C-alpha cells in the first residue's frame, strides 16, 4: 500500500484564480450596449444626421441666409421659387386723374367702347381709356387671365365707373408680370350690362421705382440708376408668402419656434407621463385609482381656456412671444395620455416572472422601475414621443392661428401651413415647403425612435 503522505501544503487554502472565466469582450453597461447597437442601425444613424442637419439649418442657417423673415416685398407676393425677377426702373407712382370725355353727337348708338392703354402697362398700374358710348350710363371693367371666349366669363369685376363723362379706369389690383385681358362693358341706367363688349390684351411689365430699389438694397443709391434700366429683384430661392416675405428665411426662423415647441414640450410631458404612469402602475390599488382619476380630470380640462389663463398668469403683453405659457400649458395638460399608456404597460409587466424573480433577489423599487419596467415600456414610450412632436407643432399652429401663439411677424411652420392651405391650388409652394419640413422632422424622429427602440430594448440585448 502506498503511503499517503500529507504535508502541510495540502491543507493550505487554494488561492482563488481570476482567470477561470476570462471575459473575452469588455463589459458593457446597458447604455454603452445601446449606443453600439444604435450605431449599427444605418437608418437610425441617418435620421440622427437629419436631426442634426435641422438644428444646423435653424441655428446657423440665418447666419448664411441673411434675409429678414419679416421684410415684406409687395412687388413679389406669393412668388413661386425661381420665378423671373427682372424688373425695369420707373418713376414713382403718381396718382392719375383719369380722362373725361363728352358724349359724341347723336346718331352713333354704339354701346361697345373701344379700349386703349393710356400709358404702357406696368405692375404699378394699368390705365385704360375707352371711347365713350352714348347709351352708357356707366361702365364696368373686367380683367381676365384668359382671352374673351364669347361666353359670360369676363374675369374679375374690378369696378364700376359711374361718374358722368369718365371714360378711364386705373387698375392697381395685384398686378403681376403676365398677360391680362381687360373688358369694358357699358351699363344702362339701372346698372345692367349691355350685351356687347370689347376686350384688350395687356402685357404687364414688372417695374420698380428707383427709391424702392435703394430701399431694398438693390442699388447703391437711387441716383445710380436711370428710368428704363433693368435690374434683378431680390432672390427668393423658395419663393415668397402672401406678403412677399422670403420663404427660406421664414422657414429658418420658424424652425426655432416649431422645433422648440415640437421637441421640448413632448420631451417634458412624456417624461412627466412616464414618472406619473409608472408610479401609478407600480403602486397599484387605491393609490393607482386616485392617481388615474386625477389624470382623467386633467384630460377633461378645456385646453383653450387654460391656455388663455396661463398667458395671463405669465403676464404676456401684446406683441410678446407666448411660447413659454404655451409650453407650460402643453406640458401640464398633455401628460395624461402617456401616463395612461405607461401605467397600462407597467401593470402588465409587474406580473411578469422576471419582476418577481428580481424582487426575490432583493431588488429595490427604484431598481425594479428603472432597470426592468421602464426599459420594457420603451417601445410604447418612443411611439408616443415621436407622435407628440407633430402634435405639439400643430397645437402651436392652431394657437398662433387664433392669436394665442407666437406674436406676428415671428413665423412658425405650423402657422405657415395654416396660411398656405388657403392658396393650396394656386400657390402650392406656400403649403408644400412648411409641410415638407414638418414631415422631414417627423420622419427623422420616427426613424430615430425606431432605432432607439431596438437599441434600448432589453430583450434584444443578447442578440448579435
Amino acid at each position, binding site marked *: 500500500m502506498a503511503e499517503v503522505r500529507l504535508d502541510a501544503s495540502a491543507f493550505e487554502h487554494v488561492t482563488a484564480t481570476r482567470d477561470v472565466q476570462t471575459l473575452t469582450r469588455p463589459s458593457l453597461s446597458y447604455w454603452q450596449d445601446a449606443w453600439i447597437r444604435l450605431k449599427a442601425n444605418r437608418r437610425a444613424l441617418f435620421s440622427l444626421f437629419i436631426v442634426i442637419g435641422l438644428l444646423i439649418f435653424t441655428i446657423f442657417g440665418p447666419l448664411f441666409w441673411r434675409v429678414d423673415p*419679416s*421684410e*415684406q416685398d*409687395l412687388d413679389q*407676393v406669393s412668388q413661386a421659387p425661381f420665378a423671373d425677377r427682372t424688373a425695369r426702373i420707373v418713376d414713382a407712382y403718381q*396718382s392719375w386723374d383719369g380722362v373725361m370725355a363728352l358724349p359724341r353727337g347723336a346718331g352713333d348708338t354704339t354701346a361697345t367702347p373701344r379700349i386703349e392703354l393710356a400709358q404702357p402697362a406696368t405692375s404699378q398700374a394699368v390705365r385704360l381709356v375707352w371711347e365713350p358710348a352714348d347709351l352708357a350710363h356707366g361702365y364696368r371693367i373686367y380683367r*381676365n*387671365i*384668359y382671352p374673351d*371666349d364669347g*361666353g*359670360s*366669363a*369676363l*374675369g*374679375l*369685376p*374690378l*369696378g364700376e365707373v359711374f*361718374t358722368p363723362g369718365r371714360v378711364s379706369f386705373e387698375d*392697381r*389690383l*395685384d398686378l403681376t408680370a403676365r398677360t391680362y385681358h381687360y373688358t369694358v362693358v357699358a351699363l344702362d341706367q*339701372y346698372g345692367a350690362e349691355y350685351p356687347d363688349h370689347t376686350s384688350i390684351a395687356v402685357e404687364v411689365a414688372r417695374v420698380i421705382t428707383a427709391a424702392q430699389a435703394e*430701399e431694398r438694397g438693390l442699388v447703391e443709391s437711387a441716383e445710380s440708376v436711370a428710368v428704363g434700366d433693368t435690374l434683378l429683384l431680390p432672390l427668393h430661392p423658395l419663393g415668397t408668402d*402672401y*406678403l412677399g416675405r422670403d420663404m427660406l428665411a421664414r422657414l429658418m426662423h420658424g424652425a426655432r419656434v416649431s422645433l422648440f415647441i415640437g421637441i421640448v414640450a413632448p420631451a417634458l410631458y412624456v417624461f412627466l407621463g412616464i414618472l406619473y404612469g409608472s408610479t401609478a402602475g407600480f403602486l397599484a390599488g387605491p393609490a393607482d385609482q386616485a392617481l388615474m382619476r386625477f389624470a382623467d380630470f386633467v384630460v377633461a380640462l378645456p385646453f383653450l381656456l387654460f391656455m*388663455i389663463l396661463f398667458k395671463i398668469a405669465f403676464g404676456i*403683453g*401684446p*406683441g*410678446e412671444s407666448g411660447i413659454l405659457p404655451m409650453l407650460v400649458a402643453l406640458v401640464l395638460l398633455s401628460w395624461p395620455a402617456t401616463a395612461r399608456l405607461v401605467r397600462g404597460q407597467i401593470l402588465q409587466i409587474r406580473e411578469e416572472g422576471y419582476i418577481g424573480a428580481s424582487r426575490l433577489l432583493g431588488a429595490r423599487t427604484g431598481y425594479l422601475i428603472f432597470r426592468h419596467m421602464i426599459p420594457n415600456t420603451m417601445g410604447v414610450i418612443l411611439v408616443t414621443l415621436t407622435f407628440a412632436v407633430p402634435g405639439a407643432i400643430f397645437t402651436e399652429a392652431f394657437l398662433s*392661428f*387664433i*392669436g*394665442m401663439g407666437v*406674436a*406676428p*411677424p415671428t413665423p412658425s411652420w405650423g402657422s405657415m401651413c*395654416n*396660411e398656405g392651405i*388657403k*392658396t393650396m*391650388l*394656386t400657390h402650392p409652394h406656400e403649403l408644400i415647403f412648411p409641410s415638407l419640413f414638418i414631415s422631414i422632422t417627423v420622419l427623422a424622429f420616427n426613424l430615430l425612435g425606431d432605432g432607439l427602440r431596438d437599441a434600448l430594448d432589453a430583450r434584444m440585448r443578447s442578440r448579435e
Partner: protein
Amino acid sequence: MSDITSDTEDAFARTAGKQLLWLGLLAIVALAALMFALGWLSQLTASGAVTGEAVDVRERSISLAMSGEPPQLDSTRATDQVSGFVLGHVMEGLLRYDPTNKLVPGVASRWEIDAAGATFWLRENARWSDGEPVTAHDFIFAWQRVLDPATASEYAFILFPIKNGEAISQGQLPPSALGITAVDDRTLKIEFERPIAYFDKLVAFVTFLPVRKDFFERTAGRYGADAKDLLYNGPFTISRWVHSASIRFEKNEFYWNRDAIMLNVIDTPYITPDYNATLNLYKDGKIAVAALSSDTLENALVQRWHLERFNDGSIFFLEFNYRPGRVTGNYNLRRALQLVTDSGELVYKVMKLPGNLPGESLFPVWLNGVDGLFRQEYPARVHRIDVEAARRHLELARQELGLTRFPPLVLLSGDDPLSNKQAEYFQNVYGKQLGLEVKLDKQIFKQRLAKMTAGDFDIVMAGWGPDFADPLTFGGLFASWNLNNRGRYANPELDAQVRVAENSVDPKTRMNAFGEIQRIIYDDAVILPNYERGVVYVRDPRLKGVVRRAVGTDPDYTSAYLSVD
C-alpha cells in the same frame, strides 16, 4: 439553423398574413354595416338636410350656403347680419326696400311724416302666418318691448327719436309712455322727441318689425328660438330650422303680396364660414351663390364663371386711443401715421379682393347726399403719401411729448386671417417708414371687445356697418357721447356738427354738416380709413333678380326668379 428558423418564420408570416387579410375584409364589411346603421340612426335624429340641387326651375326652389346661423330670431333683440338676412325674408315692417333700393309700402300702405310725428296707415290684407291681421298694436307691442330696460335690447338707441324713447330705456318712464298710439287697428300715430329727417329709412330696419303680443307670451321666453316659436308676416316662412345645419324658407301663403314672390322654396342646407367649402359646393352644383375670398378668386377664374362684385356698405379703419396717457392723443403722431398710410396699397397689394375699395373717408361712396351721391357732392380730401413730411411730424410729436424715443404702439386686432394680414402689413409699414415699433395684440372676439371698451390699446382695427341709409349712421360715430366711440375722441367742433345733422331736417344743412365732419375727420387724423368692404361672388346663371344692398336685407331673394335662357 438560422435558415430553418427563417423558413418557419416565413411560413408563419404567410399564414398570419392570410389571416390578416380575412380580418381586414371582415372589418370592411363590419364598417359598412356600422355606417348604414349610424346613417339610419342619424336620419332618426332628423337633421334631415335634404341636399337638393342648386336650382330647381320646375319646383322654383334654390339651395344656398350660409356663413353662420342666426343666434335667435327675436327681432327686438337681433343685432347681427345673418339674423337681418333671415328676418328680412320672413318678416315685414311698415316700409321695405324695392329692387332699386327705393322705400316702398310694406305693411303700411301709405304714410305721412312731418316735424312733429308720423302717421302710418296699415293695409287691410297684411296678415300673420296664422291668418290673423297685422295690426297697429303689434308694432306698439314690439317697439315698447325694445325700449323696455328688462328686454335689454342692444338696439334700443335706434328708437330714441320717438317721444320718451330714451327716458323709457333709462327706466325713468314706463314703456306705456312711448309716443306711439293706435288710432284704430290700422292707423299708427307716432310722436317724435325731436324733428328727424330720416324716420322713413329707420322704420325699414329690423328692430322696427312687429311682434304679436299673444303669440309672444305663448312662447314663454323662447320667442324666435325655433321655427315654431316665431310668427311670420313676410314673404316667406321658416318651415324647418335645424340648428347650425339648415334653414328652409317656404313661400308664405298669407303674405299680402304673395303673387309677386316667384320662389317657392329657399333652402340653406349648408352652414359653414369656410370659403373653400362653399366654392366646392358651388362647383358641385349644390348651391346657387358662393362668395369668394381673395384666395379662391383664381380658382373661380379657371372655372370660367361669371363673377360679380358688390360693396356691402361697411367701412374699416384704424381708430386711435385718445385717453389721457396715450401717445396717440398727439396730433402730429397721428398725422405722421396718416401720411404713410396708403389704403390703396393695402387694398390692391395685401387684401387683393376687387370688391374692396380703398378707404378715403368716414363716409362710404354709396351714401346719398342732397341730390346725388354724397361723396360726389362732398369729395373726400385727396390723400398723398409723403414720407418726408411724416418724419417731420413724427419729430414734432416726439418733442411735444417730451420723449427720447417712442414707446411701442399696441395695435389691437381680431384673430381672423384677414385682419392678421392687415395688421402685419401695418406693422411693417410703420416700422420701415417711421421707425416705430408696433406690437400686434391679436385677441379673440370677446377679449378684443373688452380691451376696446377698457381702452387697452393705442390703435385698433375697427369697422362699422350702417344701420340706416343716412350719413348720420357714420357721421355720429365720433361724437363725444357715442358709446361706440371706443377711442374716446372728443372734439366740440365735431360734436356741434353732429348736433346740426341730428336736429335739422333741411337736407342741405345736414349734408353741409356731414361735409364738415368728413373734413374734421381727415384734418385732425381722427381715424385712418382702410377700406370699404366688398364682396365678390358667383351666382348660378339661372337665378336672376337677386338684389344686393348696403342697408336692408342683403342678399334679398324676395324678388328673385328662375329662368333658363
